[in-house]
């Protein structure tokens, strides 16, 4: 086609005139032809305006809920891990479930910031900042659980390769140790990426600051940004390099989390499908959480021109794609269990669907396989209330997925004499609910003190920034 359009033969030119190919318009990423100053005022206005009442209410409620986590963990350390619902067959319970859940949530942020950046998906610009913040806060919440899950949390630092007088050196053959490095690298690189992206916007906030304190605080973190050509060149290169560094992390972190299970011999865990299945599930739940967070923010701050229907469509489609992958993985697990003819493996999957935890399995199927199918339909993607509800259900389903994997296999493995049942205690529930408070507190602070969207990047994708704007 390229040769046809560049040097069309007479017959081809006639043909092109006749069929009149449709113009493929690029979707507008900032609607109503908003100007650069409008974008700056809109985003900076969020952090410059007087703190709204709803923010205080939300902050107090979140802080109260976060205290559940603190109380739960204090009680746990003072008493012992027996205060959780753990028992001897099901020795990994909610702590591991919640860890995998929160780590999974974080994946969308890195995918949006790194992979979509490298793939030049410009629609990411409106959501990447908040999604990256979500990633970091989710990693904070995730980190709590494996730490406090160990019986003697005060020695958890032995997991790090720190020379000590006990001559304890970590065992690099253990998947649990891979986790330590995967998650800490992920947290570090995500925070670095987030911060580098923030620098130009922090400088904008600094320059607009009306008080000395704000000027100094934002000025320190803006690292003397002046927006010179040299600054932009270095910034773009650093951003690109970090995007390149983060890209393998999107895939590696949940792959390694899945290894915690997959390298074990337990039926239902010992499967090679886990890494891709976990990564797809993580992106699925992460986008679910991005939708859960961004839809209310869009309404509260009137950001419809910046988070357009096109953005929501894209996120819904990613949920649909990854949700379908997860559904395929569920089906494939059953197939392999049958095809592999291993009676323990077959039992594990039949037990998941029809055993004592069948209720959890079917919640998982309903939320993860059926819910995203609504996103096939444009009418559903445009019904934002429905999208919001589905995004919450996706996360409910993904939590149950981790619950089903961890608990059903452990409570019913090779030795029927050791079978048991797992029920959470009040402490389990309080601690988990508390982490939502921790997450919300951090996210609300982010909303209040940092630019919610990457202003500099959004300006670059406005119709006005396009050199071909107005048909040039």
């Amino acid at each position, binding site marked *: 086609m390229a040769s046809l359009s560049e040097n069309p033969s007479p017959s081809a030119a006639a043909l092109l005139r006749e069929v009149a190919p449709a113009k493929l318009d690029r979707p507008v990423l900032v609607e109503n032809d908003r100007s650069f100053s409008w974008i700056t005022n809109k985003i900076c206005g969020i952090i410059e305006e007087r703190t709204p009442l709803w923010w205080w209410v939300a902050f107090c409620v979140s802080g109260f809920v976060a205290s559940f986590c603190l109380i739960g963990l204090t009680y746990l350390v003072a*008493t*012992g*891990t*027996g205060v959780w619902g*753990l*028992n*001897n*067959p099901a*020795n*990994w319970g909610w702590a591991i479930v919640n860890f995998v859940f929160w780590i999974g949530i974080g994946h969308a942020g890195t995918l949006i910031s790194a992979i979509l950046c490298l793939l030049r998906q410009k629609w990411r610009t409106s959501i990447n900042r908040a999604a990256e913040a979500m990633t970091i806060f989710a990693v904070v919440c995730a980190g709590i659980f*494996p730490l406090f*899950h*160990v*019986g*003697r949390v005060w*020695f*958890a630092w*032995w*997991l790090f390769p720190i020379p000590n007088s*006990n001559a*304890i*050196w*970590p*065992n690099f*053959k*253990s*998947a*649990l*140790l891979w986790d*330590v490095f995967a998650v800490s690298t992920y947290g570090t690189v995500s925070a670095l990426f987030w911060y580098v992206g923030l620098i130009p916007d922090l400088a904008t906030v600094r320059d607009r600051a009306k008080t000395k304190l704000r000027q100094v605080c934002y000025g320190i973190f803006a690292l003397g940004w002046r927006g010179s050509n040299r600054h932009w060149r270095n910034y773009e290169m650093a951003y690109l390099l970090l995007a390149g560094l983060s890209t393998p992390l999107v895939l590696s972190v949940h792959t390694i989390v899945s290894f*915690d299970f997959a*390298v*074990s*011999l*337990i039926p239902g*865990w010992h499967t090679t499908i886990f890494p891709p299945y976990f990564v797809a599930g993580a992106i699925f739940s992460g986008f679910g959480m991005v939708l859960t967070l961004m839809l209310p923010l869009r309404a509260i701050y009137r950001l419809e021109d910046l988070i357009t229907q096109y953005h929501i469509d894209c996120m819904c489609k990613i949920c649909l794609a990854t949700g379908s992958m997860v559904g395929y993985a569920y089906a494939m697990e059953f197939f392999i269990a049958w095809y592999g003819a291993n009676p323990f493996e077959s039992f594990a999957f039949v037990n998941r669907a029809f055993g004592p935890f069948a209720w959890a399995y079917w919640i998982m199927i309903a939320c993860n396989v059926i819910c995203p199918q609504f996103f096939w339909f444009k009418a559903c993607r445009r019904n934002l209330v429905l999208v919001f509800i589905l995004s919450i259900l996706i996360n409910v389903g993904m939590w149950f997925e981790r619950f089903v994997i961890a608990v059903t296999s*452990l409570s019913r*493995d*090779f*030795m029927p*004499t*050791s079978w048991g049942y797992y029920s959470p205690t009040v402490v389990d529930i309080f601690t988990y609910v508390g982490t939502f408070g921790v997450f919300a507190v951090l996210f609300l602070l982010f909303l209040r003190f940092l630019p919610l969207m990457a202003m500099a990047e959004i300006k670059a994708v406005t119709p006005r920034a396009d050199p071909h704007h107005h048909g040039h």
Partner: protein
Amino acid sequence: MVIDLRKCTGCNACTIACIAENHLPAGVVYRPVMEEELGTYPNVSMRSTPRPCMQCETAPCVPVCPVHATWIRPDGIVDMDYDQCIGCRYCMTACPYHARTFDFGYNYTTGTPEPNQPYERVPNFEYGKRWEQRRGRSPTGNVRKCHFCSHKLDAGMLPSCVTSCIGYATYFGDANDPDSLVAELISRGNKIRLKEEMGTRPRVYYLI
């Protein structure tokens, strides 16, 4: 170790002797006896299978420990260091025999009118060391397992499960010594090992 299932009466004396020897707290058991019903009515029989740690040659619990708290001794016993264990329980998920249990620090008398009796705080002497049973101190918050009473073996004595067996169903010795009784027993055709297909190469044999 060789356990003759034909001689095992399912009396649980070995389980109790082990608990008494190692002062195991509530919820921790090293050598349960699994009861199994064979056949269909009216032709049924019971089989009792004591299940100590299999002391596997390729123990799946060893490489998964993130802090090197468990290892295989030169004599083949899967050993562990309570002081080094952080209690992540990864070895428990790795063991296909459920041979490892977690010490949650439960007491037998919890919930009774007089909880925390002095006898529940009596120290044990596993691995040749004195271990106080107190909250926050090893082995509370650790994973625990059968070690063939290694502290007794090191003193030239037999494990408590062997000496307490009323049916003389449990034999103990050096399988590498061709003149030993266990070497003779495991050379017979009626021996099995649990879940050999897992590739764990257990050192506990059952005679059926």
